[in-house]
């Protein structure tokens, strides 16, 4: 699954570690999601969307 997480994170000037801390996950998780190698669960996708004040479909696309 493609996503705009890296772009959104860059806009906030956050490192992967910063985002991981806000999401309460490991930095490796953020990296795996950003590279599209790991698809987050629906609850985590909602948390990410809430954090960036976006809809899920604005961040993730099939």
């Amino acid at each position, binding site marked *: 699954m493609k996503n705009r997480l890296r772009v959104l994170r860059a806009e906030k000037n956050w490192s992967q570690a910063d985002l991981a801390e806000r999401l309460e996950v490991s930095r*490796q998780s953020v990296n795996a999601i950003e590279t599209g190698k790991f698809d987050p669960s629906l609850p985590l996708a909602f948390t990410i969307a809430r954090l960036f004040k976006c809809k899920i479909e604005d961040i993730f696309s099939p």
Partner: protein
Amino acid sequence: MWFTKSAAERRYLSRVLVSMAGYVLAIAGVSWMFAHRHPQGAAVYLLALLPALPIFAVIAILGIYLSEEKDEFVRTVLVKSSLWATGVVLAFATFWGFLQSYAPAINRTVNFPMYCVFIVWWVSFGLAEPLVRRTYK
């Protein structure tokens, strides 16, 4: 590093350390009993069960860690690594069983106690974990 580990992982490591301490004590105690008291009958079975109990605990502790870990990516890596390790143990045990049937001489030359499958599982898990992690990079 210790401070970067999740709370669930720290609890897991503490529990494993306690279990392993119990395992060392059980092995020492049971070995002493068999060497000096020569137990017989049901006591043999009960004493043989004692060092296995901390091992059962470690298996349960891994299950508890999987349910307590909030990071779903970490859980995914753990589950995949566990499946690889379980696959290796099953394959190895199957091969070893056939080897014992068709080449019985192996029983005289190589002593492989069944409790060693636990060690094989953990070694396989330790090897699989970084490889599984690498697939997400």
